């Protein structure tokens, strides 16, 4: 049997919500990163689902772009995390409040 598109969209929504809530409630920078990845992949899943449902290859093409950008973002983000860890010996996001007004 094949699942209808709605299941995929529901899964995507659940994964996105998990990512979003995780981002808001967790303090560890690495976990927050993973949550961002969850949200990105939830979006990817949505794109693919709609591409299949509508028979439009464009949605699948966008996923590739998102994957590439996500990879680049992870590289930069982890670089920052590592550099920051060397300086301040912490991965807790709330300690990084230099932007406080």
């Amino acid at each position, binding site marked *: 049997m094949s699942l209808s598109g709605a299941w995929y969209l529901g899964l995507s929504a659940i994964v996105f919500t998990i990512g*979003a809530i995780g*981002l*808001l*409630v967790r*303090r560890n920078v690495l976990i*927050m990163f993973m949550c961002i990845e969850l949200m990105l992949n939830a979006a990817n899943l949505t794109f693919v689902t709609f591409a299949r449902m509508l028979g439009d290859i464009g949605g699948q093409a966008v996923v590739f772009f998102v994957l590439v950008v996500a990879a680049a973002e992870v590289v930069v983000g982890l670089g920052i995390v590592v550099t920051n860890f060397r300086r301040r010996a912490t991965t807790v*996001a*709330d300690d*990084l*409040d*230099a*932007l*406080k*007004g």
Partner: protein
Amino acid sequence: MLLLPLAGFLVLLTVGRRVGDPIAGWIGTAAVGGSFVVACIVFAGLLGLPADQRLVVHNYYTWFASGGLSVPVGTQVDPLSMTMCLFITGVSALIHLYSIGYMKADRDYSKFFVYMNLFVFSMLLLVLANNLVLTFVGWEGVGVCSYFLIAFWFERDAAASAGKKAMIYNRIGDAGFLLAIFLIFFKTGTVSYESGPGGGIFGQLSHLGGGTATVVVLLLLLAAAGKSAQIPLFNWLPDAMEGPTPVSALIHAATMVTAGVYLLCRMNPVLHLTAHGMTVIAVIGTATAFVAATIACAQQDIKRVLAFSTVSQIGYMMLAVGSGAYTAAIFLMVMHAFFKALLFLGAGSVIHGLEDEQDLKRMGALRRYMRWTTVTFSIGWLAIIGIPPLSGFWAKGDVLDNAFAHYPGLWVVALLTAVLTAYYMSRLEVLTFGDEPRWDTVGPHGEPAHHTPHEAPLIMLVPLVVLAVLSLFGEVINLPWAHTHSLNSFLAPVFSADQYVDGLTTTRQWVLGLADAVAAVVGAVFAVILWRGAAVDKPAWEPAFLQRVWYWDDAYDLVIGRPSQRLAAFCAWVIDGRIIDGAVNGVAHLAKVTGTAARRLQTGYARNYALGIALGMALLVAFMLSRTWWG
């Protein structure tokens, strides 16, 4: 002729400080003297032309052109500008020579000659220019040189503020000049006098009909009143005496202050269009002559007496202009340049000899110590009060005759002024040279006694002697019975509308001349009787009203000065302080308050920002959904 003083100015500007005293003075004198020689040559050339062709206009290049306005840099050599040039360069050369001695050992010796040469250049530009705008350039040039030279000893407060005063009074007149130029251009479309399209201004007099000519003339009169120190703008000139004495002689007696009279004479075809304007000029001139003469009777400072005398004499010139007798005005102007320069230089010699003493009450008996100065000064004295047959008698007589022919009422005042002139000049003469010395004792306010005065050096005496000779014999250029080769016929082509009168019957002329002479003698005799003797404090004869210049300065202070200050204070404290600063500070304050409130949003916690993004997204989605469902 024009370029030599400019060259002198530039040379002195660059190397003057290095060559110093006295070479800088000689360079300056040579430049002006050379200019005089050139003027003589040009004059000879002009005389070679037939009388009706004596108008040589040269346009060198177009200064600027805009729309219908085209302003050339050009010169106009005609009998009027030539007459002016001759006496300007001649008297200037003599005064430069005198200054070599007078300014000796001054700290800014070369700077003095820089300014003097620049002044002569500007003055020549003023008289030689062939259009109003270029004349205005020269007009401003002499004004700024006058400012520099009045405030020459700028460490002294009085000199600095006198310079400012002269500048401001002249500004008022200059505004009149500019408005007159604009109005003339608006009506005729040209600023040239006699050249250019349509024959210049004088070729298009018909465009200046009706009230326009009157307005133009009144504006020009305002300009002339500023430059030539006439009522109501005359009070800057006495203060200008703070400058070095040669400056007073050159700028504030002989040349610059006559520029206003020159301007009116130059514009004589326009003046001729308006009888009302002429009357106003004559009345202003007479009033100034009389008021200044009364004030001169009560002044103690030798230079201030001469300054008010200058104002008074220029008033006479204005009266002549107002009578339409331009020749008489120019005649008196030239003669006045001779004898007033002589008087100022003589006064300078006295001041020099008495170690900078200028108070008449602290002089006396100088005839025994300064023979040359006494003799030459006395010639100037006799000339200005109008004792025949010296130059002043003829020149002033010309003015009075013409006033009699046109305005008998003003003639009475002018004659009375002549009595006053004789009185105050004789008082000056007696107090300075007559009687017993008063400089060898301690003064009433504790001034120390002076040393025995000494005669001026030769280099200062030579100009005195030359000017004395000119004051004695200068009148030959315009004696009433030699009109065939006189100033009058020479100037006739320029003053086509001249109402110069020598057609008075001879008996009448003799009677008028006799009246002038009697006026002079009466005033002089009265002064001599009153002021000889040791007692020099006669308060009854020097009322405060006259000493304080008819309270003219105080009136200006009350009417203009104080309210302006109050207005300025209002602007400074209320408008600037409260409204403008308040607006600026208010904007800053608003930004600060907003910022203080907004900084609370910046917690620095990434989760808060993320929440903001999420909420924003949610809002956006909600909005789009609402559009879908209800749109």
